[in-house]
């Protein structure tokens, strides 16, 4: 019974969410490529210009972190775009040392600190943000933006 139910759920999922996935060398010059790709995808879903900007920045922040914390120069990082009818989920994964929970704290806004803003910006711009990681196995961040009807 449960197996059948799961299968039905899977089938439903398959028809509603399209996934585009990418593997990218962990190098700064490719963040701009991802920004354009995610803009095109968000545009296709129907997000307005302001939302597309938000998504672009948030995804770039996650890619920047993935590149900075990748295992080494020959590493790749991975991005998956989960394209729904009225939502875009973006998963960014690296093979670095993993993020520690205590790293993800609110920055002291207004303080003159050069770092610690990236994850805060992602959380500010996206509707849902979650992390999963295994120490020494890398970090995975998932962020979601919903298409709102009220515009």
């Amino acid at each position: 019974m449960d197996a059948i139910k799961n299968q039905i759920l899977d089938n439903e999922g398959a028809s509603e969410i399209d996934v585009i996935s990418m593997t990218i060398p962990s190098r700064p010059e490719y963040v701009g490529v991802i920004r354009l790709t995610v803009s095109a995808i968000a545009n296709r879903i129907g997000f307005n210009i302001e939302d597309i900007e938000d998504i672009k920045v948030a995804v770039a922040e996650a890619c920047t972190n993935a590149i900075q914390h990748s295992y080494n120069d020959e590493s790749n990082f991975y991005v998956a775009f989960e394209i729904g009818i009225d939502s875009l989920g973006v998963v960014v994964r690296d093979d670095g040392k993993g993020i520690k929970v205590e790293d993800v704290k609110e920055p002291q806004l207004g303080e003159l600190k050069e770092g610690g803003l990236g994850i805060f910006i992602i959380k500010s711009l996206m509707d849902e943000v979650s992390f999963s990681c295994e120490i020494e196995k890398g970090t995975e961040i998932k962020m979601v933006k919903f298409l709102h009807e009220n515009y």
Partner: protein
Amino acid sequence: MSLVINKNFDEEKNVWDVALKGEVDIYTANKLKETLIDMVSEKPQDILIDASSLEYIDSTGLGVLIGALKRLKQHDKDIYIRETKINVRKIFNITGLDKIFKLEG
């Protein structure tokens, strides 16, 4: 997907004029960092950034600006940022940096 930096020291007003064109991200931030550090070393004076053609900035770029501001503050000088586009302005606003930098126009 690139950044063009035009700088000029205004001898009359005793300030640095810098125009940023393009995008400041992890790929281009270093170039901006080096330019700003050079400027502050050469003449530690107020910096006026023309951001009217700055299309994009993220936390990497903000980090560079904060670093430069710290150096300038030691000389009691400031960074003024003019005519930010709406998307760039938003990044300053949500990070509270609109209260740290002098944003104008």
